[in-house]
């Protein structure tokens, strides 16, 4: 399945505080130039490009929850020139970074000053492939096939936003389908159970061995996508000190011992 990583360099997001509104504190966030993405299509071809537009009206709710509602437009350069849209919507608990109360003013807002780990639903819109021979949408249609899976599946954006004194400025998001994450998560869970490993120890060598086993079990066609998920797990666990059991709900997974679902050919 198609997957990619969005890299948002420092100061490529612009945050304007609209202020206190009903239910919370509103921020206008604009996605600027210099935001790139790279990954692989479902066929394994290299995928890369940049964000050409994006806006979000983030609500920092009075109960300490951030609600995102971003509209982002992506311009791929590889494998073909193609424009597609993403809608990043969902909530993130601010309690882990020390916020559970309402933000009343800019002084409160500036206390938001830590990276915010997020797992947000994101869904995409992209053109039907090859349906129009001419007209203003012909180019979008002609180059759409490598991107078609974006419009057919539900995806998650996992990563972090960098927040500096109340300003959302940058970050990194890994975009993966829910299906890929579920498969990776389940297989990883089985391997962990089988080997009796505990990620609290954060033994990198052990994790690499797990990854290698996973790749062997799955074959190379899904290797990159799954390794991306595992790397993200490793990074987040290493940085946070949480256990696998604590981390598991981020993937919305019900851990069991049943075999993983068959892999699609995408």
């Amino acid at each position, binding site marked *: 399945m198609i997957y990619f990583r969005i890299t948002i360099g420092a100061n490529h997001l612009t945050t304007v505080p609209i202020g206190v*509104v009903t239910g919370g504190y509103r921020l*206008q966030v604009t996605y600027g130039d210099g935001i790139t993405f790279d990954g692989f299509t479902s066929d394994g071809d290299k995928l890369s490009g940049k964000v050409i537009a994006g806006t979000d*009206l983030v609500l920092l709710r009075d109960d300490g929850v951030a609600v995102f509602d971003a509209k982002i437009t992506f311009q791929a350069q590889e494998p073909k020139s193609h*424009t597609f*849209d993403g809608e990043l919507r969902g909530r993130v608990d601010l309690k882990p970074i020390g916020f559970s109360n309402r933000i009343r003013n800019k002084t409160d807002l500036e206390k938001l000053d830590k990276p915010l780990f997020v797992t947000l639903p994101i869904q995409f*819109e992209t053109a039907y492939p090859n349906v*129009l021979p001419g*007209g*203003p949408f012909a*180019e979008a249609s002609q180059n759409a096939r490598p991107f078609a899976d974006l419009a057919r599946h539900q995806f998650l954006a996992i990563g972090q936003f960098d927040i500096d004194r109340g300003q959302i400025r940058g970050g990194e998001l890994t975009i993966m389908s829910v299906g890929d994450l579920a498969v990776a998560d389940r297989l990883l869970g089985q391997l962990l159970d089988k080997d009796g490993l505990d990620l609290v120890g954060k033994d990198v060598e052990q994790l690499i061995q797990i990854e290698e086993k996973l790749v062997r079990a799955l074959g190379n066609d899904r290797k990159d996508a799954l390794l991306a998920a595992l790397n993200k797990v490793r990074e987040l666990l290493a940085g946070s000190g949480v256990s696998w059991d604590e981390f598991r709900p981020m993937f919305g997974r019900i851990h069991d011992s049943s075999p993983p679902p068959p892999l699609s050919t995408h």
Partner: protein
Amino acid sequence: MAAPRGYFLDRALLYLFSYNTEIEHRTQKIGIVPEGARYNESARVGDSRVYNVFREKSQGGLGPGFKAVTGRLIAGFDRALYRSDDVIVGDVQATIETDDGELIGTRYRATAYLRPGGYAAYVAGIDRAGTENVPVQAPIVITPSFETQASAYQFLVTHRCVGFGRADVIKSEIRRLSYDIYAMT
């Protein structure tokens, strides 16, 4: 059960402000999706003004608390869908900075009906409605809601609003939008 009324309830439209939005010439064409043709438009924020048609500083005669809204757009983004039933639906997020330095966020849906067969002609590339000298003007209706912490503009938050607009269409692309915004009271 109450008897059916034989009269209308009181209603009024209170004029609040107007704005003109210049659209970036290069729309981002997402393509043909199940509901129709998707494209995005961004406002040229430096050229987009918020003003009062009567150049008033307050809404005289309608009571205190309705300060005139003047300023500029500092962000504006529309995810538009030209539906296959010939209706254009917009999904807009925008932010206004008033001349007195306050920020007002808005989001709204927009609805416009151009003409029968317009969608098919547009996506086929045979509809080139409007020229630079004689743009086609299409009516648009929007239902914005506003957010601000500025006490002077709380009337925007406490009223449901409607906007009546015109889109200037050149070669089947919207180049300029102009709206009058009213509170429904």
